[in-house]
């Protein structure tokens, strides 16, 4: 039984050629590059007993990294949800000089290598940097503290919220707001009762995407974090630290925790997108 017959139980006639080849190639390549290597993590971790596994993933230093990685990522995603929404709103609703340029630069975190972002943010927010030197007199230290981790995670999360909310906002019929206004709603009521519920699924999707990305982020964080164990060490870094000590089992165990989290986020994001499509009447 070929690939084509397995995937096509109804055996409808296909006019277009190349289904078997394209799907077969896709599956083989996907398995070789992604699925088999990823399964190595789970198989490797299976060499550990349950209690060994638990001892690694619940050791105080590792738990401290979860707290920082997940806490800072949540906070960064929340900041992005608020400011990303405002930025998307400004880009869609207001005209101002330089708008096209700003619109294009929103994607900078996608295009700028993370290491570059990391050293640039460090230079800015260090005690002698442009922004750091303004904050230092106030007693606020950003670089080489957990706050620095937050700054880096906010940076890499910017495009997610803006780019999920912006198209929904552009497609929103003005009729909805006109209807609300003609029924006597003021601007705040229109926003909270009509616009926000409509934008909410997209906003949450953007939030979840930014959160998921932030938890796994490495390059932009390690320069600004200071990487002090128990204080400013993120979970991806502890995997690297364990690898450098040839502690494969340890690195793998922590990786399993992160991967399971990633899969759960992927599921959540898919559900959110389905909800978003339903609420805004858009079909992907």
């Amino acid at each position, binding site marked *: 039984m070929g690939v084509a017959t397995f*995937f*096509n*139980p109804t055996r409808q006639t*296909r006019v*277009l050629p*190349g289904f078997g080849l*394209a799907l077969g190639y*896709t599956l083989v390549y*996907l398995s070789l*590059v*992604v*699925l088999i*290597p*990823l399964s*190595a*993590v789970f198989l490797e971790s299976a060499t550990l007993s349950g209690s060994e596994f638990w001892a690694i993933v619940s050791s105080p230093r590792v738990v401290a990294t979860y707290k920082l990685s997940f806490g800072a990522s949540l906070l960064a995603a929340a900041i992005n949800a608020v*400011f990303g929404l*405002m*930025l998307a709103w*400004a880009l*869609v*609703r207001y*005209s101002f000089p330089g*708008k096209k340029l700003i619109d*294009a*630069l*929103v*994607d*900078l975190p*996608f*295009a*700028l*290598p*993370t*290491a*570059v*972002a990391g*050293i*640039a943010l460090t*230079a*800015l927010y260090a005690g002698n940097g442009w*922004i750091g030197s303004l904050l230092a007199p106030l007693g606020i230290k950003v670089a080489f503290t957990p706050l620095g981790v937050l700054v880096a995670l906010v940076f890499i999360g910017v495009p997610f919220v803006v780019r999920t909310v912006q198209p929904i906002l552009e497609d929103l019929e*003005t009729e909805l*707001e*006109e209807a609300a*206004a*003609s029924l006597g709603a003021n*601007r705040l009521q229109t926003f909270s009762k009509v616009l926000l519920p409509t934008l909410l699924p997209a906003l949450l999707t953007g939030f979840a995407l930014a959160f998921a990305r932030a938890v*796994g*982020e*490495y*390059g932009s964080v390690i*320069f600004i974090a200071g990487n002090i164990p128990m204080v400013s060490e993120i979970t991806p870094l502890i995997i*690297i630290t364990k690898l450098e000590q*040839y502690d494969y089992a340890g690195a*793998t165990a922590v*990786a399993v925790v*992160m991967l399971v989290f*990633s899969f759960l986020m*992927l599921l959540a994001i898919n559900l959110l997108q389905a909800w978003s499509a339903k609420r805004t009447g858009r079909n992907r």
Partner: protein
Amino acid sequence: MVAVGTLYGRGDARRYETNPATRETDWVKWLILTAALTFFLLFLLMPLIAVFTEALRKGWLTYLTAITDPDALASVRLTLLVAAISVPVNLVFGVAAAWAIAKFEFRGKRFLTTLIDLPFSVSPVIAGLIFVLLFGAHGWFGAWLFAHDIKIIFAVPGIVLATVFVTFPFVARELIPLMEAQGREEEEAAVVLGASGFQTFWRVTLPNIKWGLLYGVILCNARAMGEFGAVSVVSGHIRGQTNTMPLHVEILYNEYNFAAAFAVASLLALLALVTLGLKTFIEWKVERGLRDTI
């Protein structure tokens, strides 16, 4: 029906600013605009400017010395080589996957699409780790590779593998929605008119997806050249041999050679700007194309 009040087209904010029902009070508008632009300035624009000012802090001479240093040039060559391999490989995969998923119906289609996106949700560090587990000295194939004198981890093949993994979905995820939206009528028409499979793809499909394809390639390339975490795990950081540009930036930075680190970083920042420029150009081109067909 001539739509009313649509002197301003889609994407023109004046259509909101002139409508009493969609307009905010001036102070609210300024508040939102100020907050949004301050956020933009602090988190996006200033880091970008910082890269270039730090790079040129010690003058052009230092800058030029840094980017013409043999190790820097070696890192540029390696970065170009890695991108030259991983982008075409993922391009071919992306087209094949999109052809199967967008032009045919089969069970498990949505699940397959999710699997293709998987590398985006995996931390780059784990992307590196999986190849160390497979091909590292203590990995599954480690002993075999050692016996046959093949080096993957801490060598160029490992860097390529890790890069292919992290850039895996870029082309496919651009093409799938695009080709789904275009349907299969044009291809079916071509086949009915007697075109072969290859002719159908080359003469009908490809012209329709060229901008989407280019878009995916550009984003894929940017990530391939800029990847840090995954590559860092498998590289071994051997100067002049297994250092890509981002890794070279890290080494220089950790040696407190800031001016040189930012000099090399500025090349990557330029790459990012070119990427964004091309991306904007393609979006403009596609939007104009859409307008012309209406």
